[in-house]
């Protein structure tokens, strides 16, 4: 097993604490194992788990060699792109919960939430395979037809005997390409005409049809071998472009809904005791226990305990909501105090949270795809080409009617915007992959186009400019581990922002029971942990309450243990980045706005950073943010919104491009077009610049492909389009446009500061 360290010099994962032994017990109950499994029989179960924390070659090796750790585990296979692990195990020897426990203890906790139950297991099966088959068929036909066309390239006269034979063979080889490989283009063309939604597939379909038609005519009438090699080659290159584009987007699944936030298990209280059940088995009337840090899974009535619920995810309110027994609690809130007991009154799927996600904003389809650069160019192109070919045909009709149809189809053939269709996918696809290596993940290439045209930047205060939680800096006598535990435990019982800052992140809060907890408004808190008396409070209150004289600066929060003063905390709302510099770089020619759900106590501070022209709005609810974005857009602005994706999901979706900032890429909001890791926020101006330059690269690629069209058209218009010319022109134009798009994008990336990343991720 030492291979792991040989493979990875810097293993990056450290588990905070080994998982509690019964944490995964619910997985063994009921039929959950069978539901989650791909396949199960009497002796073994095969299951596919999503493991977001795998990030390197050593991870792959370790996960595939799990059988060395436990004999009940059989063959395992990792799909690194999708971050999944598929393995078989003997469930009689090792229960499912044991397997998950092992993985978690190693640092590879599987993503087990409600969304997993619904996940389409056949993702990647039919759709992608179809593309491979089409590419293979087209490539096969392309190569073989080219071989058969060699005599006509070389202009050999002796081929009189074989010309019809080769011609018909080429036709036969091109048929599957026409009917199978190119089928998506015919479908798009028919759909486009029927629904008046013309994409670039339409002129491509026209060009391909003309090419095949002309070639078939030539072969049937014995006047030549046609251009089947160009036909098959074009289809092949176009499909390769599509494959390349798809490759860029496999990593993150942007299709998540509220179910991805809910845990898979819930503690149900019955007459026989507490049992962990799957959230889907929760029925109306069940009594459940929700502990500190856990999510309320469904609308419920509070039975006992005091509920201190953090609804920031749902409503955007940073201040927790307190409820007493008898009150109604909405789903989605996170409990902050000690454990409470609830009675479910609604099922998980129809609760308040689901209705929030059902907001109109999420259901509105994005029209961008039809209106993007390539499709707009395609429409212009279609018009120009049809005009040109009709015009040329009419002109020739007057002079030499026999040549007119040939000229008509030749122009359609040569003017095929195939290189046009390749430029954008390759340039934008390369850009997206480049950014992914820097931990900025785009949903699709349209997001990149949108970034290039942004003229209004809306910043969400919390989580974007500042860290999601303020931090507490301690000054004073050193404290033991136990004393820190005690302080954090006491602080976590209170919902005051200062206490929450001292308590630290939810995951690190100790579960120690606190006795005699009291909170005095405006002063502080006191509690007893394991016999140790802890008081945390304002300078004045601490001074009144301690025996010896105390030095606590104004505004700081002091702490005493067993009556003895030990030190104080300074609460700092830490900024992620140098705000004024960021804003200055962003603001060149753009309007900046700041939205916040909090009160405007810090308005003057932000005004100083953002400048007088910025639009600062406070106390906004999530729907207010959405409306504000919409009103900007109605004023003709292109809005980019950046937030943490939790309570501003609607606004993110509404904006032209929504960026969700996250500390960890595996937990994020689905409403955004871009997901960015928090440490990249300061590079936003560079991102916008890169997007603009990439679009320029696409335009230049368009120009290059148009150049080829012009050259080819001069041949076609003279009636001199020989198979040789078209066979050369087609691959040369495709290759050079693609090569240019790829290389230019890399060059632009290096120029705008997106070269090789410092921290490499295998993406």
């Amino acid at each position, binding site marked *: 097993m030492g*291979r792991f360290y040989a*493979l990875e010099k810097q293993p990056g994962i450290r588990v905070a604490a080994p998982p509690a032994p019964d944490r995964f017990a619910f997985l063994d109950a009921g039929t959950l194992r069978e539901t989650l499994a791909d396949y199960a029989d009497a002796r073994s179960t095969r299951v596919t788990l999503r493991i977001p924390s795998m990030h390197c070659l050593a991870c*792959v090796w370790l996960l*595939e*060699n799990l*059988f060395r750790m436990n004999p009940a585990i059989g063959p395992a296979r*990792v799909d690194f792109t999708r971050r999944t692990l598929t393995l078989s195990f003997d469930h009689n020897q090792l229960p499912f919960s044991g397997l998950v426990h092992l993985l978690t203890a190693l640092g590879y906790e599987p993503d087990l939430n409600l969304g997993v139950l619904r996940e389409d297991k056949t993702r990647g099966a039919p759709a992608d*395979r179809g593309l*491979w088959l089409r590419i293979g068929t087209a490539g096969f036909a392309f190569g073989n037809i080219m071989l058969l066309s060699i005599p006509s390239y070389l202009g050999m006269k002796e081929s009189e005997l074989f010309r019809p034979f080769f011609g018909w063979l080429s036709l036969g080889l091109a048929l599957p390409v026409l009917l199978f490989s190119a089928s998506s283009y015919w479908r798009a063309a028919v759909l486009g005409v029927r629904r008046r939604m013309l994409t670039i597939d339409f002129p491509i379909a026209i060009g391909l049809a003309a090419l095949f038609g002309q070639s078939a005519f030539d072969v049937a009438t014995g006047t030549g071998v046609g251009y089947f090699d160009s036909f098959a080659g074009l289809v092949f290159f176009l499909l390769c472009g599509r494959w390349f584009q798809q490759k860029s987007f496999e990593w993150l699944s942007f299709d998540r809904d509220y179910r991805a936030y809910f845990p898979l298990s819930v503690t149900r209280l019955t007459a026989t005791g507490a049992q962990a059940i799957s959230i889907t088995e929760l029925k109306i009337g069940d009594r459940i226990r929700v502990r500190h840090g856990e999510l309320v899974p469904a609308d419920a009535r509070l039975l006992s305990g005091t509920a201190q619920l953090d609804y920031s995810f749902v409503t955007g309110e940073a201040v927790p909501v307190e409820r007493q027994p008898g009150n109604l609690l909405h789903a989605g809130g996170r409990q902050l105090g000690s454990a409470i007991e609830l009675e479910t009154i609604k099922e998980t799927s129809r609760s308040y949270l689901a209705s929030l996600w059902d907001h109109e904003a999420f259901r509105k389809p994005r029209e961008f795809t039809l209106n993007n650069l390539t499709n707009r160019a395609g429409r212009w192109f279609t018009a120009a080409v049809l005009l040109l070919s009709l015009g040329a045909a009419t002109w020739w009709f007057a002079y030499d009617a026999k040549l007119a149809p040939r000229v008509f189809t030749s122009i359609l053939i040569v003017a095929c915007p195939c290189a046009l269709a390749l430029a954008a996918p390759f340039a934008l696809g390369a850009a997206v992959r480049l950014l992914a290596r820097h931990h900025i993940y785009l949903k699709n290439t349209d997001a990149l186009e949108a970034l290039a045209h942004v003229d209004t930047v809306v910043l969400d205060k919390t989580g974007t400019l500042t860290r999601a939680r303020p931090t507490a800096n301690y000054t004073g006598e050193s404290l033991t581990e136990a004393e820190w535990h005690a302080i954090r435990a006491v602080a976590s019982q209170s919902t005051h922002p200062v206490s929450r800052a001292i308590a630290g992140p939810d995951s690190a809060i100790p579960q120690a029971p606190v006795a005699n907890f009291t909170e005095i408004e405006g002063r502080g808190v006191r509690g007893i942990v394991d016999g140790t008396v802890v008081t945390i409070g304002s300078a004045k209150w601490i001074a009144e309450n301690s025996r010896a004289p105390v030095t606590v600066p104004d505004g700081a929060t002091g702490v005493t243990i067993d009556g003895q003063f030990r030190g104080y905390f300074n609460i700092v709302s830490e900024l992620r980045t140098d705000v004024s510099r960021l804003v200055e770089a962003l603001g060149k020619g753009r309007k900046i706005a700041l939205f916040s759900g909090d009160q405007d106590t810090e308005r003057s501070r932000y005004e100083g950073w953002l400048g007088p022209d910025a639009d600062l709005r406070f106390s906004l609810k999530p729907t207010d943010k959405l409306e504000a974005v919409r009103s900007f857009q109605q004023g003709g602005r292109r809005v980019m919104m950046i937030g943490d994706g939790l309570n501003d999901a609607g606004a993110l979706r509404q904006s032209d491009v929504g960026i969700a900032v996250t500390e960890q890429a595996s937990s994020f909001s689905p409403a955004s077009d871009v997901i960015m890791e928090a440490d990249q926020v300061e590079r936003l101006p560079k991102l916008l610049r890169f997007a603009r330059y990439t679009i320029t690269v696409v335009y230049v690629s368009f120009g290059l492909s148009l150049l080829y069209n012009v050259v080819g058209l001069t041949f076609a218009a003279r009636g001199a389009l020989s198979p040789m010319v078209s066979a050369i022109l087609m691959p040369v134009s495709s290759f050079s446009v693609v090569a240019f798009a790829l290389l230019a994008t890399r060059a632009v990336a290096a120029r705008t500061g997106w070269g090789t990343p410092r921290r490499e991720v*295998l993406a």
Partner: protein
Amino acid sequence: MSVLFLLILASLAVALLFLGAFWWSVRSGQFDDTSTPPLRMLSEEDHAGEELEKRKEL
């Protein structure tokens, strides 16, 4: 020279066999994940497959 007819048809037949093999390999799922095998290749020895085979024989 007319034997070329036969030869070309024969070679096309062989080529079609290979196309058939490609189709079979795609439909049996060998192309579903093309990015993990390159990674797996980088660890030279200790192939999990060999170890498991040995285990099965025991």
